[in-house]
């Protein structure tokens, strides 16, 4: 076990997967010589060459579209989109072409493409770089959507994603790249999709989070503990597939749930989590399920983004409200 930052866990997993399977290739903007704007592909080109770690034109639709073609030629592409905000320029290739390729061809082709993209705010990036729109991705049947909240999961889920026969959108918390550090298992490590991780065990209230919000939920849970409230933090890990049973089991036990997301409130993925809990664990509920969320505005300019992104203070308030209902 070594303590790694999330970006180092991603980088080393890419390296290990490329060494394991020569069909794996990385492509994207600045992924080669520069090693990626966040260094997630650092030194990969040095080791594997410029035919397997490919600097592409600034061309998101072509990066994803070509990845489909590469996959049907028998390769395992791991394209990087420099920021999730730029995924809109490839949206038709992601949500309609890649996600449906197997369906549209009666399984003649499967497209094992893992798209990596950093997302979310908190690093003072310019406008249009920081949006969290994972719900759009989840609403694309055929696609799997993965959002690790720890460095260990970043490794285990990325390895699973690359080996998965289906296309996977792998979301990386921009702010967590270097901030999130934890013990990462050595050697081969795979994390099964569709199983929540209990980031912190507790009895009074379940806080559900994913990606960059897991750390915020844990911070709030620690503060709640000081007030005598025992909080269970669930890291969803994968949004599609969603661990319906894992969610239900936890909330059935605690009777209370708070769901935290960075995205705008309305129709965000938190709404799906709330609906699922209501369907699966309604009789166990002792308080209304609540959401702590971004607002129904664009993510604001950097000087205002800390007021937009949920913090531990807001999560703690929701925890208290649930317990005191």
């Amino acid at each position, binding site marked *: 076990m070594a303590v790694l930052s999330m970006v180092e866990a991603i980088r080393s997993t890419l390296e290990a997967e490329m060494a394991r399977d020569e069909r794996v290739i990385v492509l994207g903007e600045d992924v080669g010589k520069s090693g990626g704007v966040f260094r997630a592909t650092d030194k990969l080109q040095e080791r594997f060459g410029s035919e397997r770690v490919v600097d592409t034109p600034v061309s998101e639709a072509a990066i994803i579209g070509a990845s489909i073609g590469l996959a049907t030629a028998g390769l395992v592409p791991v394209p990087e989109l420099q920021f999730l905000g730029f995924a809109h320029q490839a949206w038709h290739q992601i949500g309609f072409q890649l996600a449906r390729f197997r369906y549209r061809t009666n399984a003649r*082709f499967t497209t094992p493409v893992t798209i990596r993209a950093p997302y979310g705010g908190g690093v003072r990036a310019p406008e249009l770089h920081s949006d969290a729109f994972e719900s759009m991705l989840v609403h694309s049947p055929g696609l799997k959507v993965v959002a690790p909240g720890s460095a260990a999961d970043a490794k285990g889920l990325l390895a699973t994603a690359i080996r998965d026969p289906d296309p996977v959108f792998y979301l990386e918390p921009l702010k967590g790249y270097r901030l999130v550090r934890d013990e990462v298992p050595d050697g081969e490590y795979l994390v099964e999709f569709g199983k929540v991780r209990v980031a912190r065990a507790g009895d009074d209230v379940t806080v559900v989070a994913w990606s960059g919000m897991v750390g915020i939920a844990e911070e709030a849970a620690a503060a709640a503990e000081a007030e005598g409230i025992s909080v269970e933090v669930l890291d969803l890990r994968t949004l599609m597939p969603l661990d319906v049973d894992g969610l239900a089991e936890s909330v059935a036990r605690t009777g209370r749930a708070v769901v935290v997301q960075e995205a705008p409130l309305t129709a965000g993925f938190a709404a799906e989590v709330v609906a699922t809990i209501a369907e699966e664990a309604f009789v166990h509920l002792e308080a209304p399920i609540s959401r702590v969320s971004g607002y129904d505005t664009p993510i604001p300019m950097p000087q205002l983004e800390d007021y937009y992104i949920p913090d531990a203070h807001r999560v703690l308030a929701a925890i208290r409200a649930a317990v005191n209902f």
Partner: protein
Amino acid sequence: MELFQILDEGGQLVGEPPAIDDATLVEMLRLMLLGRRIDQKAISLQRRGKLGTYAPLSGQEAASVGSVFALDRESDWVVPQYREQLAMLHHGLPLSTYLLQRMGHPQGSELPKDGTLYPQQVALGAHLPQAVGLAWGLRLQGRPGVVLAYFGDGASSEGDFHEACNLAGVRKAPVIFCCQNNGWAISVPWHLQSGSPSVAARGAGYGMPGVRVDGNDVLAMYASTSEARRRGLGGDGPTLIEAVTTRLGAHTTADDPTRYVPADQVEQEKARDPITRFRTWMTATGRWDDDAHAQADRWCDEQIERAVAEFDATPRPDPVTLFDNVYADEPVRLLRQRAAFVADRESR
């Protein structure tokens, strides 16, 4: 930009014909005739409510047949848009499967197993970056083969066309971009589609040759595609072919071209009929006669009768198959939705 021609509109040789053996030439003309017959049959089935919306190919037979015959079916891929019925048939798609696709039957999405055929694309231009990736992937793995990607003049205005050509130029992907420029994107004529006099002229901007070819001249299409294929296999990268062709009918069975195509243009385009031109040359060179034509007619009848019989004999899909093939590894929740769906069906 000059128009490359081998057979002129009267079927006279104006260039060097490509080396194609007689049996293959006969096969090409037969497939072109089949195309015209498929249109007639499909439109009639559509009018009787037996087929969904259909995009006729009449007028574009040479553009499809001339180009696809230049490929090696074992190693070269076809990435079609939706008016390439003949290229798809040539690359192994059964006609009955094509008809089922047009009827909205999921079995119509089937592609030849281990074949070199992509699904037809209806989101214009979206298949072009995919074709580049496929061609690039073949090259990366040291596999022989080129990718022939078809699209129309309308699709050439899509961003995906630009991104695909640009990436293909950089990666030297062995892809042949074959634009079937029939002058109409449904009702919008070329001069409203682009300020450029041709699609082919854009090749230079991507570092690839662009050639403007008479798309109603099957020999010119074969020769230019063969040349593009040689370049691709030789590591010289992509080629842009603009097949200047004609859409003799409507865009689809849902379209009424009398609203926008001038009447005199219809007559002019009929004079450019690719089948008449090829048949004239084949007859003049002793490769075709009335007997051969009657034989080809019978062959077309058989193909169509067999396909329609298979189409008619195909039962409606089992409703639960709507869940099939979404994921290779299905999420639990989807499995539960399937089970609930079955229970709901059984409760009715």
